[in-house]
């Protein structure tokens, strides 16, 4: 049971990394970003190339991969997302979906369709209260919690963070204060993309790597965002871990149903709290 909880925490942490970008993009720009996990997939493949072909150390490879997706995130924001401000949700949805189609195809083009695997980079275990935990998973959960507090600090203490939070509440009023929001929007988008890539880079060693990996996890992340509330940073954090637990516990007792259970939870949440977007 302890191992199940550990697994749930790991999944929750990964979901948190990815969902935070979705939630922020939605809250500030009102764009439902289907292309969000494209940076996740690309980040993972870059990591794979760095580690297996260029023999870079895992730690540095991870940092380079996250940094390398930043320009990609910026390009997507500049040429696609920025044209979609104020559009109806259908068009933003279709356009970002088109971006994700193109992205997945590019990944298939460059790296091929065969699933690949990366080993656990730390390969150490820790003994705690009679249980052995892989250090790597503890590290993922640690980074997620650290990120949560860092983000809280960022939005409370820095001017940029305060502007972003204010824009989540009411964009028009922020604009009336004479603040040019476009710059902050691209910052939010790039931050979200980089965090998604970070999630991918951390998750890659314990999952299989294939071009459609982004699409499958994206659905879970949408569920997280819907359960936690769009544009709600704390809600996203708790929803991510709660749904991670749902996945882990279902996987223990009924393995094939793990992901479907998340959607059932989401449907139940929506029955009691409909979301008008």
């Amino acid at each position, binding site marked *: 049971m302890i191992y199940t909880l550990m697994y749930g925490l790991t999944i929750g942490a990964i979901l948190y990394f990815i969902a935070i970008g979705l939630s922020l993009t*939605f809250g500030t720009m009102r764009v*439902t970003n289907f292309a969000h996990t494209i940076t996740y997939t690309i980040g993972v493949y870059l990591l794979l190339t760095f580690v297996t072909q260029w023999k870079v150390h895992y730690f540095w490879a991870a940092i380079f991969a996250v940094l390398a997706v930043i320009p990609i995130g910026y390009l997507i924001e500049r040429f*696609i997302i920025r*044209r979609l401000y104020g559009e*109806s*949700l*259908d*068009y933003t*949805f*279709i*356009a970002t*979906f*088109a*971006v*994700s*189609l*193109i992205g*997945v*195809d*590019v990944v*298939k*083009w460059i790296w091929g369709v065969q699933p690949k695997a990366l080993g656990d980079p730390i390969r150490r275990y820790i003994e705690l209260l009679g249980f052995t935990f892989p250090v790597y998973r503890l590290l993922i959960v640690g980074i997620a919690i650290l990120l949560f507090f860092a983000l809280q600090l960022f939005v409370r203490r820095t001017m940029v963070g305060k502007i972003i939070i204010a824009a989540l509440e009411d964009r028009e009023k922020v604009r009336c204060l004479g603040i040019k929001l476009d710059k902050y929007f691209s910052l939010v988008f790039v931050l979200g993309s980089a965090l998604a890539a970070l999630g991918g880079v951390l998750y890659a060693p314990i999952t299989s790597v294939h071009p459609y990996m982004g*699409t499958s996890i994206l*659905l879970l992340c*949408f*569920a997280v965002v*819907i359960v936690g509330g769009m544009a709600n940073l704390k809600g996203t954090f708790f929803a991510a871990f709660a749904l991670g637990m749902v996945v882990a516990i279902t996987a223990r007792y009924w393995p*094939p*149903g793990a*992901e*479907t259970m998340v*959607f*059932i939870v*989401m*449907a139940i949440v*929506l*029955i009691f709290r*409909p*979301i*008008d*977007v």
Partner: protein
Amino acid sequence: MKPENRDIYELLIIAGSFLLLVPFLHTHRITDFMIFCIFVLSFDLLYGYMGRLSFGHLLYLGAGAYGAGLSLRHLTANPLLAILLGIAAACLLAMLAGLIVVRATGACFALINLAFNQTGWFLVMSPLRGITNGQDGFGIGAMRLGFFNFGSATFRFWFVLITLLLVFFLLKRVTSSPYGVLVRSIKEDETRVRFLGYNTYLYKWLTFVFSASVAGLSGALTALNYAYVNPNTMDVHKNVGAVFACLIGGAGRLYGALIGGVVYMLISNFLPLYVLRWEMFLGLALLIIVFRFRRGIWGSFEVWLSRAAASARLRAQSGKGAPVK
């Protein structure tokens, strides 16, 4: 042309256009095209007319296919009854799911449908494997009832063509009725419709169920056409095809749905033969549609037609008003 005969002429034109395709393609393929057109029509009712984008409409196609396939396998040897049972399966499923999904709007609507589609796909793949035979699917035999011989490709072609015309006629009537106007006003501004005293949830639910039933019909026809059902019929990723077809033809126009359906089928059937990266092509085409070509083929045609008519009228007027020497 008398106005009351207009419907008949329109149906004849549609039937004629599909028959024109016959010399160029196989009959089997055109049957496939027409089934897809029925599905796009059902999707257009939901997206083009009611303004609710669903990324999980294939669930109802799958429900229709499995409903028809399973009832042919276990319940009855009557293919027409099986089609009805397939529609009923999709309809019942939509009645239940509709209670939840119509409460959402915009992106949530699309995502919840997507989640339901994924769940349905998973149910068919894994927990219900005993009945549905999981990934392998199952074949259907004995599809003959007197004159209705679904074993023959020619009969299937005519049957599907007539079904398509019926569906088109029905949808044309429905969308131009007061109910259809109400559905279109929900797309424009739901709050105002509610202010007028209409229970919009009821109308959205009805439209959703209706659209899903038509999708179920196309699913049942798919099952009969291939004599085979497998989970690929409700693969979540294929939903983009319907969206693409609807947009390129012109959303909110029944003719647009037909043209879009044929264009999408032509692209997806023949482009992969020549272009390896056809998903990228589809993505780029979607981007172009969203940013530059929102009216679609039929919408642009209508605009061109009305412009031509306006300029013709202008010419006629100036001709009349010109001073006589």
